[in-house]
């Protein structure tokens, strides 16, 4: 295990050290101390590393992640794991707005609450939130799964495409073209796997599923009011 002090080396210094590791490096477990809420920590990683961040992080932590497992032992600011491609980002505390925005793949787990716009424009990522999420979450979500063990705020899944949304608690309101859908055996099975990956004890049958009514895919003047 190697340690880096972000206060000493700065964000650029920390990220450069992680980028410059040779592909076959044995130094695979890194601990970052004193993150001090700085932005873009452990962004753009492209190797199967484990990076543990001891404290709260600022915006875009773990953005564009590929292959790495990033653990935030604290809260995360705006846009955690935005545009993640693969790997895992695990936030032990709460996350701010736009968690997992536009992410293509990988797993994002937030043990606490996420704020508004969680999973906005998600393109294949799996997101599991232990607590609740804010308004406008999964806006224009295209692919992937968003699992919420608490409640969801207003306008969930507005203008959603093919992503699947599972919510255990209350949904304040559904956005345009987002509807509740039947929970079939295959969904319960998928959900069970997702909950297991996120180390959750919640029961899949306690969740409800939401997704696209597929009425806004193409412009139709009869639906003009729904846009």
């Amino acid at each position, binding site marked *: 295990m190697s340690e880096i002090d972000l206060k000493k080396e700065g964000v650029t210094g920390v990220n450069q050290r992680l980028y410059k590791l040779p592909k076959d490096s044995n130094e695979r477990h890194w601990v970052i101390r004193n993150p001090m809420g700085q932005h873009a920590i452990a962004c753009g990683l492209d190797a199967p590393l484990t990076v543990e961040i001891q404290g709260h992080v600022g915006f875009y932590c773990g953005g564009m992640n590929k292959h790495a497992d990033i653990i935030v032992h604290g*809260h995360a600011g705006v846009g955690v794991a935005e545009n993640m491609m693969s790997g895992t980002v695990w936030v032990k505390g709460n996350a701010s707005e736009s968690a997992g925005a536009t992410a293509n793949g990988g797993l994002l787990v937030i043990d606490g609450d996420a704020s*508004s716009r969680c999973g906005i424009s998600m393109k294949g990522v799996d997101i599991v939130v232990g607590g609740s999420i804010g308004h406008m979450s999964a806006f224009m979500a295209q692919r992937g799964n968003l699992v919420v063990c608490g409640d969801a705020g207003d306008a969930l899944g507005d203008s959603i495409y093919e992503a699947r949304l599972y919510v255990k608690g209350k949904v304040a309101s559904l956005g345009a073209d987002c509807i509740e859908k039947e929970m079939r055996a295959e969904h319960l099975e998928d959900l069970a796997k997702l909950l297991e990956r996120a180390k959750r004890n919640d029961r899949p049958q306690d969740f409800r599923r939401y997704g696209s009514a597929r009425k806004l895919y193409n412009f139709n003047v009869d639906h003009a009011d729904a846009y």
Partner: protein
Amino acid sequence: MCGIVGLYLKNSKLQPKLGAMFKPMIIEMTNRGPDSAGVAIYRNPVRKNEVKFSLAHDSADYDWKKVDTGLERALKCEATIRKIGNHCILVTNAKEDAVLGWLKQNHPAVRVVGSGHTIEIFKETGLPENVYDKFDLASAKGTHIIGHTRMATESAVTTAGSHPFATGADLCLVHNGSLSNHNRLRENLRREGMEFQTENDTEVAAAYMTWKLRNGATLKQAMEDGLRDLDGFFTFLVGTADGFAVVRDPIACKHAVMAETDDWVAMATEWRAIAHLPGSETARTWEPEPEKVYTWGGHA
């Protein structure tokens, strides 16, 4: 952009350290707002029959002596001044309106940047660190403090356009965002007797809150009414003589984070500003919800 930061002390033992605790917070917000910075600090309350004015003039060597001696003679009152940078704190037992009228007539280039019993406001163009040092704020004692770092988008980089905006009664307001109905609202408030020094949208929000408080609203009520009457993007941080409040617009466009311990409550645009406070790592940390008013003190 813009950065807003606030610190409200719950533990009175920390009051001597208020300015020192706040310095790294506002400096951390420099790259959100390098154009100008402003600070409102609540300290040294004056007597009931006195008013405290924060005055500013573009010239650093303005002869403030003329202000207090002239005022004493004209209004037959007592007045003391304390010069800090190109600002001056004037304390007098004359009536607030009379002082404002006299200043306007005799010292038209002097700007009144704040007034009340406890508030003092300092704001200036330049980097937050320079502004903070210029007004000797690191050694400041007080109960709560609010700051703003501005990246100007909507009006010019001037001291007058810098936050915090104050329109009397110890109230000040800092704002991240922009309002869309401020022109109409300004006209309505003028009819109610409120005065404006700029064309800035935030000044209208400050005047609105002051007007509400003068008409008997609590800080919480004023903020709740503001949600209904102000249109646009905003995260507001408002200070009053003994209160501190935060509200975000219904869509919560502009970032905000809050943290609280037994000793203090802090609000900032980004958590990295709060990271400098003792106990921040274990503080209760959350993102304020849209349309929800958070208040401390202020007869809430």
